[in-house]
């Protein structure tokens, strides 16, 4: 009955997590950084759902829905701050965030 073994889901979620982390660290555009952040949070969600199915336990699903909400909240606040940055700098390049240096 179980078509795809759980390892495949876990490998997928690990790959997505690493791609997301790479994006947050390397990319220069603020919007893409926020998207990479979403990718990281959602890769954890895939792991939750996969574990939940393998364990036949609903907690993972509940956690996934809560984590989705949190991800939406983070992106909403993030976009608001991106708009505020754009008002000041007229660019979304992350290199403009250099005012705070000791």
């Amino acid at each position: 009955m179980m078509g795809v073994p759980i390892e495949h889901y876990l490998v997928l979620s690990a790959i997505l997590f690493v791609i997301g982390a790479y994006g947050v660290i390397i990319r220069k555009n603020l919007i893409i950084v926020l998207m990479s952040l979403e990718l990281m949070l959602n890769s954890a969600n895939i792991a939750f759902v996969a574990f939940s199915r393998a364990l036949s336990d609903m907690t993972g699903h509940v956690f996934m829905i809560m984590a989705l909400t949190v991800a939406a909240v983070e992106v909403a606040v993030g976009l608001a701050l991106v708009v505020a940055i754009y008002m000041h700098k007229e660019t979304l390049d992350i290199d403009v965030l250099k005012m705070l240096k000791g």
Partner: protein
Amino acid sequence: MDLNEVLKSTFLITPELSLILTGMILMVLDPFIRNRFKKELFWITALGLLIGFALNLNRFRYTESAFAGTLSLDEFTAYFNIIFIIGALLATVISRDYIEKTALKHGEYYALILFSTSGMMLLSSAREFISLFLCFEIMSVSVYILSGFNRRSPRSVESGIKYLVLGGFSSAILLYGIALIYGASGSVFLDEIASRFNMENPLYIAGTALILAGFVFKIGAFPLHQWIPDIYEGAPMTVTGFMSVGVKAAAFAVFLRVFFEGFSTLEVQWMQILWVISVFTMTIGNLAAIVQRSIKRMLAYSSISHAGYALVGIVASYGEKELGLSSVLYYLFAYTFMNLGAFGTLAYLSLKDRECEMLEDISGLWQRKPLVAIALGIFMFSLAGIPPTIGFFAKYRVFLSAIRAEFYWLAIIGILNSVLSAYYYLRVLVYAYMREEQMEFPAPQPLSAFAIAILSLGALILGIFPLYSWELAIKAAGSFIP
């Protein structure tokens, strides 16, 4: 879980609910009030916080679990809630004048402080990963907005976006760690995870490591501390004071709860890691603070080294469980007074268009405002750990517990660091007391002055008579040790 239990649980979290309700009332009232009356919303905030504080004192009498065991309301929770509410209350008192000076918005500011504080309070009681993660985010997201609150200032907005991206990064790491732990154990409750913990299973080890990394970030310890100076420097002064005290204490609370309750099987391993982390955190924070010309940035680096001192207490609890844990709790309590006081004084001295943050900005303080200078002196002495202030007693307890637990090197490195830190704290006082330049200082602000007086008297009197508050910390630690 039937209706009766829900009602009973709801009744048990009334301190948190009073904060949340006050925050909602503020959000609703805010649009209907004329601009010049908006500063009076402060009184509603203060009332809500005081009610929460009074209701929270009840918790010292019982230990209960609410909402099917997801929240544990014990003396540990009550102790941390006292720290959060004192921090939030005094920060809002100082904020009222600061917001008025800098022409920010009152309503949302207070509501965000209340929401963030309620997140911290629930966080200190969470013993299950879903509520833990949600409360973590309630606290963090409110603080992201607060640090970017001054929209007109590019520095504040920059601090907000940096905090959001880096904080989101650490939350994602934490969430992934929780996912792995859930997959390995099949449960999100800390006690069930502890009973099923299996050292052979790599998922547990990887999950613990990721969760540790997430918490180390929030505490602001080495090697994930670089975000602290930038974000503390850019955020509005009162927000920096609030988050350096509240968020840090909340992160420590949840860290203690998760690692002592959930992952105690791996205690030997993570204690060794924390030994290294605490040594580097103290030393790097101090070395970087010495070269700073900005007091705000210096205090940010010093808050890193203070996280290191508190971690010494956690490491010491490996040998001396009760003494070590209670010294951490007491350290965070003491840190609330001295650090919020230091940032509060700087907020008090800030002008409309110029934050008081460079060393030169406070020169001549003693001639112009002697009382503020005395308060600043108490905070700096306390941060440096010079008797008879509260900072001395807290540091003494932390290092004593390290010695009792036979971590001699850790205690020696800590004490050397503490001596080193006196240099940059006292340099602030050299500028405040011995320079003659006449800087421009703002007009007196009675409410803020009152809050700063409370903080400085607290730092002094609790340092001379520490035993009552120390017993409270021992009681809180006692309720927490399994």
